[in-house]
């Protein structure tokens, strides 16, 4: 995606909140249905979309709860619309069962979770990165998932577009893990020219209805999903199903499905992985960060360099699937990896799994305050001694 800084264009150079950028990113991505339930700090996304969606012929509905919201989103997606919901921790917990349904039935949709401090009601207006593991394993059963986490207002716009593209390309729910700071923070940003934004549309089929199998395992890993109402009458279920979508208990039908849905994500890792490497070439210490924490980490790395520490940064935008190869490749050459997070150590578990516990230093905060560059800088200095 490229930027087009045309100052005469009204859409360029705007002061915008992360939640607003998410809503505008959704519109730009082609989202035409939103269902949600008010919750701090994600409410602004719903408010903006209640105004913006009808302007572009889309539809907004405030449902009776978050369970109904994600259900309506899946229903709308089955009808052919690009669809999204947005919530925060408590609502994200309520949505988990139906996120599993979307994974099982392979229905494209985007779920935005603007993380706030938990558990339970926690501190609604305080930031957190406490839902990282819930994004991966919140719903029951083994399933693939994609989760993206932005660290600026502009990146929120971009990753919202990417989330829709991944959802449609891979027929999967995609989770956009924002945090309260990114959601509420205002930055002056330049939005891309709509014509330059790469959009992925749902694949159609050329086979006649009687041949159509919505869950065909070969030759494609992502069989096309034809919307309801277009002459391809088929069945969708949360039960394990055969290639036509009918419930099955046969192992020779369950296994190929299971293998395919993991394969469709794993074989496309290079497309899905979004990350930035900063000064990692000569580094002996690496900081791996995402979301709001990546902002502090970047500044800490810059300051540490000025002090002569050989430290680099990997800023992850894709956190699920975990970028094993990226981390492994970098960590092979490094002695130390620092993982700052606004939780008690969630993505650090993955880093430790890949590079070994002895190499990893966690920097955690889970009280609703954010990590400052100094917090991370202290860890760099302490460990470089």
């Amino acid at each position, binding site marked *: 995606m490229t930027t087009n800084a045309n100052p005469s264009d009204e859409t360029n150079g705007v002061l915008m909140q992360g939640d607003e950028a998410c809503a505008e990113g959704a519109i730009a991505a082609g989202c035409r249905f939103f269902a949600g339930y008010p919750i701090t700090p994600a409410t602004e996304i719903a408010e903006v979309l209640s105004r913006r969606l009808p302007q572009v012929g889309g539809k907004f509905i405030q449902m009776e709860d978050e369970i*109904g919201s994600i259900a309506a989103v899946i229903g709308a997606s089955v009808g052919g619309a690009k669809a999204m919901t947005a919530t925060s921790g408590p609502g994200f917990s309520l949505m988990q069962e139906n996120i599993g349904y979307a994974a099982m039935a392979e229905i494209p949709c985007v779920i935005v979770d603007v993380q706030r401090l938990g558990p339970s009601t926690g501190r609604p207006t305080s930031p957190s990165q406490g839902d990282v593991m819930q994004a991966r394993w919140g719903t029951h059963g083994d399933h693939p998932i994609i989760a993206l986490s932005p660290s600026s207002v502009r990146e929120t716009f971009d990753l919202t577009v990417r989330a829709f593209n991944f959802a449609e390309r891979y027929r999967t729910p995609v989770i956009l893990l924002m945090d309260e700071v990114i959601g509420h923070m205002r930055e002056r940003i330049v939005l891309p020219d709509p014509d330059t934004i790469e959009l992925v549309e749902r694949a159609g089929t050329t086979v006649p209805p009687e041949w159509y199998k919505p869950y065909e395992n070969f030759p494609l890993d992502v069989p096309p999903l034809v919307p309801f109402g277009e002459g391809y009458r088929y069945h969708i279920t949360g039960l394990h199903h055969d290639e036509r979508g009918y419930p099955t208990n046969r192992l020779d039908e369950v296994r190929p499905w299971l293998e395919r849905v993991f394969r469709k994500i794993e074989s496309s890792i290079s497309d899905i992985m979004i990350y930035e490497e900063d000064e990692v070439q000569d580094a002996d210490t690496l900081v791996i960060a995402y979301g709001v924490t990546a902002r502090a980490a970047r500044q800490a790395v810059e300051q540490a360099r000025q002090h002569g520490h050989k430290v680099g940064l990997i800023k992850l935008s894709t956190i699920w699937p975990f970028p094993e190869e990226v981390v492994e490749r970098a960590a092979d050459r490094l002695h130390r990896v620092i993982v700052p997070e606004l939780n008690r150590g969630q993505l650090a578990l993955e880093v430790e799994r890949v590079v070994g516990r002895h190499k990893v230093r966690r920097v955690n905060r889970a009280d609703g305050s954010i990590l400052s560059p100094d917090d991370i800088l202290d860890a760099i200095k302490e460990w470089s001694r």
Partner: protein
Amino acid sequence: MKQQRESRVHERYLRHSKKFPNVWCAGCGIGIVLGAIIRAVDALQLDKNDVAMISGIGCTGRMPVYVDFNTMHTTHGRALAFATGLKMVRPDMKIIVVMGDGDALAIGGNHFIHAARRNIGLTAIVVNNATYGMTGGQYSPTTPLGARAATAPYGHIEHPFPIAELAVTAGASYVARSTVYHVIELEKFIAQAIQKDGFALVEAVSYCHTTLGRINRWGRAPDMMRRLKEQSVTVRQAEKMSANDLKGKIVRGVLTDRQDMIEYTKLYDQIIERAQEEVG
């Protein structure tokens, strides 16, 4: 002769690619409701491509897989919420949502009242067998007071929901109740509900002879079917009866058929017009 013709009607709507037999016990009322739905759709001459059938979880939740419509078997209690999203992006589709009493009124009770309140154009059909049949006869929101259930071994101490009356109060534009014994009437109500432009509910009172019926020794399927016949009175008969006489009775008929409400997606079209006028 008539029976022969009807069996051919079913054949045109059942999925021949599906692995039969169905999951329901012999003598179950759910198949009777499905038959009524099929005949109603056929009588209305709807295009199968324009019909969606959406369900939740439970015995009734298994209904859509057998019929050749656009079908979706969703999560427990959420069928109306899934259907709401589909209806909003496909307002021209006829969406029939089939649920059991536990599905629609317990875990899905919130979606039930809000779908009715919104008056969104869905046809909700609740097969009320007063129990959770698939899991073995636990008490549901419509299990009668005093009955025994798999989870009420000492008798049930909760009062049943009057499903149809609840839908009237919540704001549905069409509400009717019949039983699986009164199958011609049931078919007529379902056809009216499908034609209604707004939220329409048909409560189909049924029974579960293999769980709740067995636990309470209410007899076999024909005995329970006979009881539906004996216990039911029409709306007109009920008007002349005292509250005491109405205890334990099933009131059959059209409870409401409002003409004064605009369907939700049509109202939303007005929102789109207003929003687009504003931006020019």
